[in-house]
């Protein structure tokens, strides 16, 4: 071999080595355009889906809901058992370690639950994470006992993907504010690298973490950028400023799909959309409520306005949600003639005035959808008007029970228990104000029944009463459209939580 050839070969080998070494060390980063704001360092200081996901990933999810299996599965809490109707025992994994190498123990879980979620007046999560928890104690280093004030069958739906476990030692050493802001430590596969409130949050992968080892193609960094405007998210996706865009509106789907290297992935959300009716005149009559349900052509709205991006609900919940019963009866099909007859039976043969209230911009095409409902209601004899108050006003009045007729969504319904209690149990909230002792009894029973089979039966019976009595007409679950760059493999979750560990980046 000539000298020049040898030099050339050596140079090529060196270049190859350098390239492969740099490829091995290359940082992969995925930027996600999200709609919810990231405003505080305090992981317990807000109660929104996205943040539960992010903080859970930093601190290691306590447990998680597997939508494919339709059941909960362990993470930091490897397994659990119900010792008696008000006492749950959780066994922790010994492999979860904080950023400083110390092990996540039962003391940290107890501290997080009792001192941060329940005891801290600055916590915004007590109602969502631990509504019935009265006590948590460490049985040993890796076992936690949680005691509730009443039998709470859906306890896992409160704790999983929501309970954020932070270090007790760090809290004791630095105090709450400094612990959160300057020494944020978790036992999860990612750690907090940067937070600029109102702008972005950056997570960095912990390569030594057991979950990170299991998912080597998960991105080294995830940047969450706040982008509230759909146009902004879609444009940024097209420009490769972001690789994942949350919630692409149906009318922008084509723009994304027609772009090379981009795709749309739809996912059925767990947010149920419904028309709620307070049982006050004219909605005090069951026939009027049923007439509303038969008047709305849900299939038409789904196929036209929503361009097929929603799944019709024939009861309070749909497939994949806990307790879904495909044989639930009755079904409120579109039947305008029946609606007219029901309205006449109720004593309104010449029609009746109603005012439908809707939020604007909170749910996909909420204003346009309710605008389309008005002529449908008028066609069967209602004289309907649409009102569009500002969200904070509408929400406050819904919670006080002063709005007779409104379009609303209820998110995070993996297990429907909390949602059904909130809206339909007579002793919970006045949001709808519907009173039915039989329904109350069934809802109480399902909440206290720890046998899954029996609990599903109670839920099914309760949902059948609700569909027939129609204090609400159940409309659909939106399909959430996610815009994705083809460099990223990712299956979005129905609850809109985002876990970097579920992503795989093509290097």
């Amino acid at each position, binding site marked *: 071999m000539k000298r020049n050839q040898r030099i050339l070969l050596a140079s090529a080998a060196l270049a190859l080595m350098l390239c492969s070494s740099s490829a091995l060390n290359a940082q992969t980063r995925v930027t996600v355009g999200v709609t919810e*704001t990231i405003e*505080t360092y305090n992981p317990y200081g807000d*109660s929104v889906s996205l943040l539960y996901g992010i903080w859970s990933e930093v601190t290691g999810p306590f447990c998680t809901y597997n939508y494919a299996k339709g059941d909960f599965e362990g993470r930091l809490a490897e397994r659990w058992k119900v010792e008696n109707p008000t006492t749950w025992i959780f066994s922790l994994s010994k492999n979860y370690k904080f950023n400083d190498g110390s092990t996540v123990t039962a003391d940290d879980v107890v501290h997080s639950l009792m001192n941060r979620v329940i005891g801290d007046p600055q916590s915004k999560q007590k109602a*969502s994470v631990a509504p019935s928890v009265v006590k948590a104690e460490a049985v040993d280093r890796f076992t936690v006992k949680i005691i509730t004030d009443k039998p709470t069958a859906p306890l896992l739906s409160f704790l999983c993907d929501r309970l954020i476990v932070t270090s007790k030692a760090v809290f004791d050493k630095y105090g709450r504010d400094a612990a959160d802001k300057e020494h944020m430590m978790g036992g999860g596969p990612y750690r907090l690298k940067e937070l600029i409130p109102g702008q972005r949050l950056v997570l960095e992968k912990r390569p030594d973490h057991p979950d990170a080892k299991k998912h080597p193609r998960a991105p080294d960094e995830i940047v969450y950028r706040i982008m*509230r405007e759909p146009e*902004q998210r879609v444009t940024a996706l097209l420009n490769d400023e972001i690789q994942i865009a949350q919630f692409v509106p149906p009318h922008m789907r084509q723009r994304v799909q027609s772009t090379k290297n981009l795709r749309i992935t739809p996912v059925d959300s767990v947010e149920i959309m419904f028309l709620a009716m307070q049982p006050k005149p004219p909605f005090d009559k069951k026939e009027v409520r049923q007439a509303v349900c038969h008047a709305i052509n849900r299939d038409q709205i789904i196929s036209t306005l929503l361009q097929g991006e929603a799944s019709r609900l024939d009861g309070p919940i749909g497939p994949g949600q806990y307790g879904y019963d495909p044989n639930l009866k009755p079904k409120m099909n579109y039947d305008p003639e029946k609606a007219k007859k029901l309205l006449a039976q109720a004593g309104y043969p010449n029609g009746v005035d109603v005012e439908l209230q809707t939020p604007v911009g909170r749910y996909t095409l909420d204003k346009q959808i309710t605008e389309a409902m008005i002529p449908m209601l008028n066609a069967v004899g209602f004289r309907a008007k649409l009102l569009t108050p500002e969200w904070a*006003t509408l*929400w406050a009045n819904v919670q006080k029970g002063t709005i007779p007729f409104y379009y609303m969504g209820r998110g995070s319904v993996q297990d429907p228990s909390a949602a059904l209690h909130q809206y339909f149990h007579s002793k919970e909230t006045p949001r709808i104000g519907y009173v039915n002792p039989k329904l109350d009894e069934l809802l109480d029973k399902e909440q206290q029944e720890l046998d899954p089979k029996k609990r599903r039966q109670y839920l099914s019976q309760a949902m059948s009463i609700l569909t027939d009595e129609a204090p609400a007409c159940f409309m659909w679950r939106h399909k959430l459209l996610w815009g994705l760059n083809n460099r990223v493999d990712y299956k979005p979750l129905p609850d809109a939580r985002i876990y970097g560990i579920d992503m795989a980046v093509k290097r």
Partner: protein
Amino acid sequence: MTSYLARRLAGTIPVLLLISLLVFLLIHAAPGDPTLLLLGEETNAADIAKAKAHWGLDQPIYVQYGKFLVSVAGGDFGKSFKYAEPVIGVIKSRLPATIELAIFAILIATLMAIPLGVWAGSKPNSWIDNLGTTFGLFGISMPSFWLAIMLILLLAGVLNILPTSGRSTYGIAGPEQTGFYILDSIMQRNGRAVWDALTHIFLPALALGINMLGILMRVTRSSILEVMNEDYIQTARAKGLRENKVVWRHVTRNALIPVITVVGLELGTLLSGSIIVETVFSWPGSGSLLITALNARDYPLVTGLVMIYTAAFVAINLIIDGLYAIVDPRICY
């Protein structure tokens, strides 16, 4: 001048008091309960009562207002419900972004509007006058939220030359020192970060400043037209001065007084405009903060922000009054 300033400063106290009372009453009268909005959907009556007691919302409104005034007198606006941090600290962390944006919006507006207005006014009914007038009308008529979206579509989307939103690209800027990204990057001699910050600020500043640009352009044009007919301008021309010199030295200087007044008034509009523009461009300033605070019915933060905005507005007017004396030596206080 000193006594005039002292009188004006003393006059701001009742203004601020009145504004604080109005804001306090209005935000408390607005429907929406912060405890319900902040504690989540599943919250119960006991937790709501506990939160109300913690935030002092269980006390009569006049007691709440009295306590607020006492703490404001000591420089404390209370603690934000949402952020659980002192209001002043939260506002301080967001204000530099808004000030930076406002400065750039003013720069864009004045640097374009004044030459355009002078040019249009000095050549009435010419093509440049028609073009300038149309442009001014466009600037005044366009709602900033629509213009912002159009700018994103055109400059970030179709042309792909600017980022869609945010204040900086992750990983480029150095550590924050003053909170003004461009200034920080210059101080750190980080040219890449300066350029990155400039590309991020351009679109929101343009969306924010274009309305001001339209108004300033039209005011400058009218003012120039008025001064052009003054006798001393005819005298200047009769002396044989070149038209350019007449326009820029004699006409423009005299025509600028009403323009300065409008700049001052428009600064207030700029602050309120920033609320929308910051939200559309995800600009982490005090405008988007106000929207977040309003949506959460975060009473202390809303009141604190409005008070700061009011104080800024009053201060701007004082500065503008001071500027009159510099621009027009005939004015003295």
